[in-house]
């Protein structure tokens, strides 16, 4: 049963879908090609609670009818209505069916191996995770190295559990399989593709 969408509560998406999504994509690409680099996205958006502006901008830019979304929000949540209305994406119940996953509550997040990690012949058929964090900073934190990073970069992502980092460590050894992650906070985001080694 698909819940009805209340249009009176609906906040708008991009004011200019063509240029705003182009700009957001280049920000995401910049983050993905330079793991640890913090970029801004969706500054002008009025995103539905609990999605932050960057998460909302990523969804508006990358999601459509071809990309099943899994999220930890209740199925009748206002934010899901917003995503279904603006992106037209199917919302799935099982993380292993999702092309994208939106995680708003990191404590209750499923283990990383519950998501699609691809297979040896098609490592690209994996889930991209959008994880909302309470803080992103490059001042200190984890030490990242790998493709896209000249020597090393540092990134601090607040509010992630120890179990998450253990899962990530296991997935790193499975390369080229694994999930790619976008961390978001307010109107900023940073990426952690599967290639990157995380220490500390």
């Amino acid at each position, binding site marked *: 049963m698909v819940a009805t969408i209340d249009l009176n509560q609906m906040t708008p998406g991009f004011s200019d879908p063509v240029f705003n999504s182009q700009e957001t994509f280049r920000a995401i690409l910049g983050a993905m*090609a330079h793991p640890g680099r913090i970029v801004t996205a969706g500054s002008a958006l009025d995103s539905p609670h609990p999605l932050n502006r960057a998460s909302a901008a990523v969804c508006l830019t990358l999601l459509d009818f071809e990309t099943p979304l899994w999220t930890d929000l209740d199925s009748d949540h206002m934010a899901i209505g917003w995503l279904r209305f603006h992106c037209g994406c199917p919302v799935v119940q099982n993380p292993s069916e999702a092309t994208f996953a939106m995680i708003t509550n990191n404590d209750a997040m499923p283990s990383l191996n519950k998501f699609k990690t691809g297979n*040896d012949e098609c490592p690209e058929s994996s889930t991209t995770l959008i994880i909302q964090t309470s803080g992103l900073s490059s001042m200190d934190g984890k030490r990242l190295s790998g493709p896209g990073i000249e020597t090393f970069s540092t990134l601090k992502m607040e509010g992630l559990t120890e179990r998450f980092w253990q899962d990530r460590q296991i997935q790193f050894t499975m390369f080229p399989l694994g999930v790619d992650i976008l961390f978001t906070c307010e109107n900023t985001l940073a990426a952690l593709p599967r290639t990157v080694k995380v220490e500390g």
Partner: protein
Amino acid sequence: MKKQLKRQSNTGKDRPRIMAGYNFAYLDEQTKRMIRRTILKAVAIPGYQVPFGSREMPLPYGWGTGGIQVTASLIGPEDTLKVIDQGADDTTNAVSIRRFFSRTAGVHTTTRTREATIIQTRHRIPETHLRNGQIIVYQVPIPEPLRFIEPRAKEVLRMHALKEYGIMFVKLYEDISRYGRIAKAFDYPVLVNDRYVMSPSPIPKFDNPKMDCMPALQIFGAGREKRIYSVPPYTKVKSLDFEDYPFEVERWSRCCALCGSDNSYLDEIIMDDRGSKLFVCSDTDHCNERVAGGYKGNQAESIEEAQISTGTGARKCA
């Protein structure tokens, strides 16, 4: 000089007019989203060829349909686009693609490598070092490096999955046993990030070392073959070789006849029917910049005279 190199402002009335009736940069938004998702996967798995739903473009396969689709998904109003074909900015393919984006996206185009934010290329990497923040988009005819060794696509997929590249080394070894050296001069296979063997597209092997730890993002688009792949900045790219037969690039015994450069890739130009030849830089922007900076090759004067007497200003018409 410095003033000229300053990036043009892309705002205001000097921006080219966008043709009516098309979406920005020609492709529809759903196609762009699909290609953008593919590009992100390609960046996350360096050297792996990600399949995508390649669209028909208003030019035939083989003319850069893959590169154009990648560029169309990347480009925004603030970008400055450079397009080269075999190093030159003034060949048909390069001129047409530049005009295509100037008409459908209204973006500024340039021939200067330093000014460009996106460089779409066929068969060369510019001599000027690319910087971090620039994106180089390669047009790729055949993305699969193992295609001519193992024609079964299913089998090739398996070989990539298992990192089973022995057959590629056998191919290179056969060259050595037959010719005494690795004879491949372009599209020379590379190993990306110690994992995937990748075709660098038909660039001369002279350009292969530029790919290693390049500060710019490299994206490869193959339209007919429906594949996109990528090398992120600062990523290890190693040309395949043997300890006793190390990878080597071409060298010339001459310098560029126009700018005197002794370290750029040279094109051989036949001058007349008596067999006289001229060697000039393949990268026209690099050559022009050196000439403007006062560098001269041994034939610069005679060519200038020839151009004046025949009334042509074009550099490669000689």
